């Protein structure tokens, strides 16, 4: 039976007069990989941040499994540990080694023993291919490695769902592959994920559904085939054409 993990109803975010997005509805089922695409400044990142309550939405509801996390009496810290987040600029804890980055939440949020946390953290680093770099500080790692530590840090909390906010946008082209590879693996292992990205190759290959967002609205959503080959809206077609051309160029250069 298909089971929704995350349900978003009429979610709205405004800053004063400015509406970032309005009445967004989205259902994410267990094991789904949803890719959100769209022009810059259309509220994709803000939308992701609302999903784990890092930004407070002004209206609408979000359910994680059967719990409404937008309800008033919800313990946000409790909710957030079940929603992993990976940031565009990695945002590793720069004073801690890769291992300590992953361990921190295990010790202070999950209250695991030092030994158990250490073992689990090493396991998660190995999972993203960084067992060797456990004792490196973020400043000693490449961007791609830093981002993989970021993924391991989020995964260590055993989240129900992972949110990726343009995880490869800050990376040099030759480092993008290693991060996408980890994400691809996660998706195939059945992790539920929402990914905001401009990597169309990844979207086409991995996404169960692609959501095209523009000007604070979901313009269209569907399978990669539907969106790439039979877009219902002119805007979707235009956007995909432009970005695919860009992506194609990047591939040629690389």
């Amino acid at each position, binding site marked *: 039976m298909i089971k929704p993990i995350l349900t978003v109803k009429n979610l709205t975010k405004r800053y004063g007069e400015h509406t970032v997005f309005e009445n967004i509805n989205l259902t994410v089922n267990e094991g789904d990989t949803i890719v959100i695409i769209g022009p810059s400044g259309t509220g994709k990142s803000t939308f992701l*941040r609302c999903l*784990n309550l*890092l930004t407070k939405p002004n209206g609408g509801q979000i359910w994680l499994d059967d719990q409404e996390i937008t309800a008033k009496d919800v313990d*946000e*810290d*409790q909710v*957030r*540990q*079940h*929603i*992993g*987040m990976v*940031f565009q*600029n*990695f*945002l*590793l*804890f*720069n*004073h801690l080694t890769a291992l300590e980055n992953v361990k*921190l*939440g295990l010790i*202070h*949020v999950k209250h695991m023993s030092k030994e158990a946390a250490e073992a689990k953290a090493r396991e998660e680093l190995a999972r993203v291919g960084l067992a060797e770099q456990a004792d490196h*500080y*973020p*400043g*000693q790692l490449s961007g791609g490695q*830093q981002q993989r530590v970021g993924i391991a*840090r*989020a995964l260590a*909390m055993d989240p129900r769902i992972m949110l990726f906010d343009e995880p490869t946008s*800050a990376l040099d082209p030759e480092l993008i592959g290693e991060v996408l590879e980890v994400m691809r693996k996660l998706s195939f292992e059945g992790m539920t994920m929402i990914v905001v990205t401009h990597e169309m190759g990844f979207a086409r290959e991995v996404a169960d559904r692609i959501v095209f967002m523009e000007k604070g609205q979901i313009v269209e959503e569907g399978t990669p085939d539907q969106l790439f080959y039979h877009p219902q809206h002119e805007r979707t077609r235009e956007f995909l054409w432009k970005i695919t051309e860009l992506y194609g160029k990047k591939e040629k250069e690389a």
Partner: protein
Amino acid sequence: MEWFQLLQRFFGDFMQGAGVTLELTAVGLLIGFVLGLALALAKTFGAPGVSKFATGYIELFRGTPLLVQLFLIYYGLPSLGLTLSQTLSAYLALGLNSAAYQAEYLRGAIQAIGDAQMMAGRSIGLSRWQTIRLVILPQALRLALPAWSNEPISLLKTTAVVFLIAVQDLMAKAKRAATTTYNPIGSYIAVAVIYLVMVFILDALLKWLERKTKIPGLETDTNPA
């Protein structure tokens, strides 16, 4: 060798005074650090009222002479029914004053680390306070260290004003030597050298602390990754 004789005669006295000066510096620095950190956190993360109070405090203590603050505490508080000893008044005035300066050094660093790391900490389920304690402060304190290092050195020299309420610090000893020997130049040069030596040692200690706490890649510039 008049100067050498003076130094010989007052050496014990000067050392005693230097000890008091170091005590004043240490206590003032400690009070100032604890209070300054609280002010910096209040200003950055506090509710609007709390943040305003911190700003007001910082401006008040940076905007008025330390000597006025010292006299208000030592001569003024007794009329409100609170009489403090000379030493206690000196500790308090130096601490309250230093807090304002330290708050500014720390606030700059906390804000530079601030929002992004807060978001990262909260994203794995750490509470706000946990994130401040485990993520933001360890980075902010390191970031602040080079600039903050001015404060202990500046404070060490500033303590000299407390001789005006008859605390027997190095400056008070210098004045005594000057008046008993009628040799102000010799006396004040002698203590100037002692101050200088203390500053050198303190400076070396701070440099050592900076090296000791350094983390690869966590640089003192404020550029985010």
